[in-house]
């Protein structure tokens, strides 16, 4: 069919169409996106605009990603026709109540350089997939920010969740404040505040959070430098009796003499082991670190020793019953909990610890020889399980339970004689030795083997699983040792091991390794 010339000519777009303000709120179910939408509607209507809002809440209200969409235009004789959904490339304002939801808005094409003001809270509400990874599965906020800088015409980003909590309110109020402060809507601050007042619930806290969001957004708009919370990198304050302080200062001075790259990790490492045990243990630690340093290469900026300083400290400060009891009974910990749950003068705190000791923990506390014999004797282990293996809820705000944990926590003098200590030290020495064995041939491989210590973590079954993953990765290391890419494969094996709980990723990676060796 031949296409006829149309009778009608294409015409220029109605300039009024450009007056429509298109705003989408991207939120996580439960964040109060509905409340925010109601406020925005109210401020628009009061300001003489025709407003339409829609949402697709539904089942997504249960912690899923939700989206609310608002369009408004100056009221006239006839109502405008608004869209019910945002379209890619056609959104003026995105309010994202969480960093990854800002990312989702960009991903869906709602943020474009020609028109979009992006107002986003930088805090994270982690998705389940980020949290379940045994390693670090947290998505990169930096990537989202980098994309936002390209995608958005203007952006206002700060932690609006924090601003809300500090005001005793919820994020919808600080987001509303940031929206007002952005100047992206043609209404005055008072109009926004009036919308909050009219809604009538939690007005005062909401107004406080609104103000906080508003001020920060204003500063961002006017280009005032964000009062960069100067991360005061002064190290922790050290306190203690003068005899110990002298010893500490001596040890710290030794660390001070180490190359800078090593120092950065050796000082926290030293703190960790001294806190775990005592000064002598700290000296042991420095001894081990220095032994590695002696074989290290300045040309590599002492990377090997740096990693050793980190992982030796972690290996030496293993998680035993004494450490747990010690931490649970410290005054500083009580103070932190009280601050966290906001215990005030007229309230009391009941503090319950959830403990579940097993026979292994009890045997681990025994002297190495005896403990080993008992651990080898199933009858004894069954007996210990019968006596001890059950969930224990200890009220550490009450004297009896506190006293018990306090005594356990005070057994640091006994620790070096325990079975657990013997096991841990043996594991440490083996690991260190096997890492350093690669040093003459393959520096990078030695570094990677040191880093495999990261796999050992957790308690009871989790700890056992971590150890078994460690062992399997080490097996893999022996398979690839001697190859040029051994270090790279070791890194890949380790990362695979951290990807899932059961180690299926690791199995796959090992299979691949076996296929070519």
């Amino acid at each position, binding site marked *: 069919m031949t*296409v006829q010339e*149309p*009778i009608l000519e294409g*015409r220029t777009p*109605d300039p009024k169409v450009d007056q429509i303000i298109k705003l989408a709120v991207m939120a996580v179910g439960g964040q109060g996106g509905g409340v925010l939408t109601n406020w925005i509607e109210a401020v628009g209507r009061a300001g003489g605009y025709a407003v*339409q*809002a*829609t949402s697709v809440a539904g*089942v997504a209200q*249960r*912690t899923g*990603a*939700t989206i609310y969409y608002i369009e408004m235009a100056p009221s006239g004789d006839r109502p*405008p026709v608004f869209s*019910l959904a945002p*379209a890619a490339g*056609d959104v003026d304002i995105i309010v994202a109540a969480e960093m*990854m939801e800002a990312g989702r808005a960009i*991903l869906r*094409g709602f943020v*474009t350089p*020609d028109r979009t003001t992006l107002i986003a809270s930088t805090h994270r509400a982690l998705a*389940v997939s980020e*949290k379940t990874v*045994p390693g*670090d599965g*947290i998505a990169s906020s930096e990537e*989202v920010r980098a994309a936002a800088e390209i995608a958005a015409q203007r952006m206002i980003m700060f932690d609006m969740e924090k601003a809300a909590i500090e005001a005793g309110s919820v994020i919808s109020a600080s987001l509303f404040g940031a929206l007002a402060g952005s100047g992206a809507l043609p209404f005055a601050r008072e109009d926004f505040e009036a919308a909050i007042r009219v809604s009538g619930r939690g007005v005062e806290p909401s107004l406080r959070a609104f103000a906080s969001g508003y001020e920060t957004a204003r500063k961002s708009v006017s280009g005032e430098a964000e009062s960069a919370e100067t991360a*005061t990198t002064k*190290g*922790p*304050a*050290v306190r*203690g*009796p003068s005899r110990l302080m002298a010893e500490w200062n001596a040890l710290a001075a030794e660390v001070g003499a180490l190359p800078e790259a090593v120092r950065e*990790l050796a000082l926290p490492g030293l*703190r960790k082991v001294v806190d775990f045990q005592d000064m002598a243990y700290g000296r042991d630690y420095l001894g081990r670190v220095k032994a590695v340093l002696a074989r290290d290469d300045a040309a590599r900026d002492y990377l090997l020793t740096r990693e050793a300083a*980190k992982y030796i400290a972690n290996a030496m400060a293993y*998680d035993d019953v004494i450490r747990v009891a010690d*931490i649970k*009974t410290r*005054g*500083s910990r*009580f103070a932190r909990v009280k601050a*966290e749950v906001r215990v005030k003068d007229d*309230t009391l705190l*009941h*503090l*319950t610890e*959830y403990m*579940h000791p097993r026979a292994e923990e009890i045997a681990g506390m025994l002297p190495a020889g005896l403990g080993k014999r008992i651990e080898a004797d199933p009858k004894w282990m069954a007996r210990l399980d019968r006596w001890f293996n059950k*969930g224990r*809820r200890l009220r550490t705000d009450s004297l009896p339970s506190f006293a018990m944990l306090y005594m356990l926590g*005070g057994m640091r003098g006994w620790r070096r004689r325990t079975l657990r200590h013997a096991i841990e030290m043996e594991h440490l020495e083996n690991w260190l030795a096997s890492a350093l064995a690669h040093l003459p041939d393959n520096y990078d491989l030695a570094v990677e083997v040191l880093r495999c210590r990261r796999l050992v*973590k*957790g*308690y009871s*079954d*989790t700890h056992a699983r971590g150890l078994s993953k460690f062992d399997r990765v080490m097996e893999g290391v022996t398979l690839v040792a001697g190859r040029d890419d051994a270090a790279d494969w070791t890194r890949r094996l380790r990362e695979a091991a951290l990807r899932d*709980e059961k180690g299926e990723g690791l199995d796959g990676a090992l299979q691949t390794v076996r296929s070519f060796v």
Partner: protein
Amino acid sequence: MAERSFKAEVKHLRLGDGATFTGEGILAITKALLECGVGYVGGYQGAPISHLMDVLADAEDLLSELGVRFEANASEAAAAAMLAASVHYPIRGAVTFKGSVGVNVASDALANLASSGVTGGALIIVGEDYGEGSSIMQERSHAFAMKSQFWLLDPRPNLPSIVKAVGQGFELSEASNTPVMLMVRIRSCHVTGSFATRDNKRPPLTVRDALSEPRRDFSRVVLPPMSYAHEQDKIKNRWPAAEKFIVEEELNEQFGPKDAPVGIVLQGGMYNSVIRALQRLGLADIHGDTEVPLYVLNVTYPLVRDEFLAFCEGKDAVMVVEEGQPEFIEQGLSTMLYRAGSPVKLHGKDMLPMAGEYTGQVMLDGLTAFLRDAAPALLPDKVRAPNAEAEPIPDLSKTVPIRPPSFCTGCPERPIFAAMKLVEQESGKHQITGDIGCHLFATLPPFEIGGSTMGYGLGPASNAAFDGGGEKRAISFIGDGGFWHNGLSSSIGNMVFNKSDSVAVIVDNYYSAATGGQDIPSSRADNQTKSTKHPITEALKGVGVDWVRQVDRTYDVKKMRAVLQEALTTDHKGPKVIVASSECMLNRQRREKPLRAKAIKEKRRVEVPRFGVDEDICTGDHACIRLSGCPSLSLKRLDDPLRDDPVASIDQSCVGCGNCGEVADAAVLCPSFYQADVVHNPGPWERWRSNLSATVIGWLQGRRARGRIEFAEMAE
């Protein structure tokens, strides 16, 4: 009590002549029903039409003033069956449920209703749960209208149009003796706007009055030979009557110039998206005045041949905008053109995608493709010859995690599935089915329990093939909502009848929680208009289940695990049914929070629980999260160069349900968790004792601190 109280909305329902209603679409429909003199209303809740049910449930006073009966039906089938009242009586009735799933359930009654035909207007309001935000399989309710011959309205998505459609729906139903389905999409249900209200109307004949003068006419009963007569009546009388009414009352609308080489035929619900695309192409103004003729099908079934052919006259090409698949409308219109020997070229799914929601971009692309092909001169220059590509925006598809719905903070269902996961860790994988309801979130990470959902109340029924038993028993989960909807008979009753060896777990959270927390027969709440507090266990025993275990606190993970293990290993013959009961936390918080605040204010003793994690003890393995997935249990990166992995952290939103501690104990995870109960307004004796402990503890702590080096926590 439903998730929200709708007392404020109920006030809107009282607005009369000359007033303006401003609010959500679904509430506008509710108001329109009353303005139309509806005699009875019912339905089954579910997004996006839950609010209709919730508002009516809170509007009992108004309804009884007007003589309107409101029934919370047991299921969509029951709701559709209720429309039987309009078969013989000239009473307008309306029911609501979600589509397409609700229509599936209702289809038995709907087919019978459609065959019988109606005297009073019968309106079925379907919230079409399709596209973004949907929780169900992606299908169309449209097919049901076609197969049973009832009429389908799909009004333009603005409040005046939707309200008008309610009235027209009743009239069309009465004019053609046919039930009418009014379809509203998710966004239309939630869209806000205004319309001019009218006075509510008392039904000319109330259902109460009808009982005094019962009517029956066996020619309306679906039995041979009447059923044959019904079919002929549908085609020969009801359909033509409907067409006549649609044309005369101008239910469908036309916009734009009369003469143009192209035109667009669209479902009413697509109107705003089509206009937006035209606005972006410079072919429509802000008010929707368009350069391209539009034929808006506010009635998508039946299609009116003469009206459509008249629209096509003089046009070279017409595009059909029809969301969802298959393309019933396009097929129908094609047939009309073909039979009329028309040369008009018909486009539709060749330029728009067959499947999926018609989002703004999809619509813009589809219409652009159509106009470029059929009337390129209409398009603005920049569309005809686009400028150079802009700077590419980095691809975040690998960065941004998906965020499926999940159990809420403190949800009592979480520990049930934590227990189930622990059972599977011990005794291996089992055959597990799910049902409909919040508990279906257990099929997603971190639990990944349950491999199918076959319909509401059909969880145990969908394990029927395995009822004969085997080395490991099959397990099914079903909610309390599903249990009363259909599960008691279809699932549980027949497990008994077939001597099933399987295990069924009834997740009882005191409400129909996923749909907004409506009451059901086993709800524990007092409800003025409904009879509640009927224990599920009694019903189970009533249908003959001998092995029943009631767990009253699902948060007791160890007990939950033990009961599951018992059910899986017991020698008992016949179905093993566990009722796991704890109140939906969302509703519980909504109920308890104000009471708690009040009690604290009144100086009464109140304990407020919360959980926390000792970050020095947590090693960052996240095993606890893999048994929880609670939104308040998250991760935090420590400012410690020695730590590689983020540690667990519990935020302010924790409600202290106890799951973290219970799981850490039952799974022997780690000692990182602590429970901190803040005691408000403690008594003098308690205060004295606590002070004494605190003093001694403080002294002990000081003593130890003085004997060691202390590193104060990092200054922030």
